[in-house]
């Protein structure tokens, strides 16, 4: 992964942005430490709700919301929470925000809530959120924690969207519910089935691996 930064061309693109450390906190989650494609975290929602682009985005933003909020709270309370019960407290904080999100989504769109089902509640056990709380927010101040959460969340959204879009496009011939191809397009039903989730994620990871391979060869 580090080759990406060392690569001279990439560097020129990143240099200006990466001047300040806080920009880096934000950027790393999107590409270098992408929670899904690089860290392979939070797989359940990645696979379960990415059968359409809309679900994927909704799930992504819901997760990002919980991620940002819990990071904020954890970074603010990091000196208050006793070390022994910190994990339990993090889980409580996360569970609270997930419950809020759950009710909020129900209020915004019942259909969406239905199609995401129990997976909204399952954000609680998304290892991404707990790992950011423990690994970053508990050791950093407010601003970097927010940036880190936003970056990771955005990276998560991007990953979910790239899966959801591909699966919906092939599996249903549409994007956000709008038909893209001609009426006669033959849907690949497998893509919106569970197996399609496994295959699509594998495909994206494979692409990442091939890219990595190419770059390390090119060096």
């Amino acid at each position, binding site marked *: 992964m580090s080759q990406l930064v060392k690569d001279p061309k990439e560097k020129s693109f990143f240099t200006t942005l990466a001047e300040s450390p806080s920009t880096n906190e934000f950027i790393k989650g999107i590409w270098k430490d992408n929670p899904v494609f690089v860290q392979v975290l939070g797989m359940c929602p990645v696979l379960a709700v990415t059968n359409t682009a809309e679900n994927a985005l909704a799930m992504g933003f819901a997760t990002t919301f919980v991620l940002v909020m819990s990071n904020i709270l954890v970074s603010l309370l990091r000196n208050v929470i006793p070390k022994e019960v910190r994990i339990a407290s993090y889980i409580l904080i996360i569970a609270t925000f997930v419950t809020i999100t759950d009710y909020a989504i129900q209020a915004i769109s019942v259909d969406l809530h239905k199609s995401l089902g129990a997976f909204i509640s399952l954000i609680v056990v998304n290892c991404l959120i707990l790992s950011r709380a423990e690994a970053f927010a508990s050791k950093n101040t407010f601003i970097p924690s927010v940036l880190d959460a936003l970056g990771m969340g955005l990276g998560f959204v991007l990953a979910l969207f790239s899966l959801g879009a591909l699966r919906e496009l092939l599996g249903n011939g549409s994007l956000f519910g709008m038909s893209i*191809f*001609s009426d*006669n*397009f*033959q849907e*690949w*039903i*497998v*893509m919106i*089935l569970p*197996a*399609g989730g496994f*295959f699509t994620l594998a495909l994206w990871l494979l692409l990442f691996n091939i890219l990595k391979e190419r770059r390390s060869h090119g060096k």
Partner: protein
Amino acid sequence: MLNKTLHISTSPHLTKGITTVDIMKNVVYALLPVAGYAVYAFGWDALFLLATTTLSAVITEHYLCMWSGKPTTVGDWSAVITGLLLGMTLPPAFPLWMAFLGGVIAIGLGKYVFGGLGNNSFNPALVGRAVLQAAFPVAITTWSAAFVSDRFFGVSSSLLAQPFMKPTYDAVSGATPLSAFKFDGVLTGSYELAFGMVGGSTGETSAIVILAGGLYLASRNMLNWRIPVSILSTVYLFSAIFHLINPETYPTASFMMFSGGLMLGAVFMATDMVASPLTPTGVVIYGVLIGLLIVIIRIWGGLPEGVMYAILLANAVSPHIDKITQNRVYGTTKQRQTA
């Protein structure tokens, strides 16, 4: 002439003389009559379909080898088998572009990612077929009738559907004996089944031709006869028992034996050496497992046919079967149980 440098090899200096390529070629020979009968029954449709899947499998194998910088393994003939078998599991009027895709998936997903010949955990043709089944459930269950009079005067329109487009079907389409039984309660006669006078996948229609191919391979020791024998006897036994208990609900044993993909699956698919267990006890357990799963899925499942799923599931179990059925090593007292 005693001064020439001698050739050094390690013992044993004799080999039986049968090569892996010989085995693969002979499987192809055994499949050719099945393919021929399919063309006879379904006309040009079957010919184009089988040619497409075979070509697609071979091309995929070749390009994947090139892509990973290895010498091409097309020469071992295993891709031809995969292609032919895949074609035989598809309906005769299956759109060619889907069939081509199936060949790519069979070799790419079913074989290449596992490390090529000798490493595939599942039967590659069935992996291809399973993906196609899940992707295009309508196309793969739209059957055309066998021995249609104009089968040698052109091809079905669905066959030539444009890539990525839905096929349009000619008026005539036949149900398979299994789906006719499952959904309409109609029982097809044994004679029609044995000689493939029925609708169904391209290669599965005539049990006799398939059995002949199996016998040929078994006689040349290129096919483990224990597998088809244990599958078929399990299916026979259980369906006979159920038929005895309640002849109204459950079909006769011979109907179960000769309908659907059972013969093709038992003789040519389940016997894929790479994906089946090694030990003599292991293959029997494997066969019985497949037979049981077929009966369970056909009788109680939501699908009319379960051969493909049964074999794929048994493939997944076969490493474990191997593990618990290791031969007792000479001079040791207990069965070796490897962790």
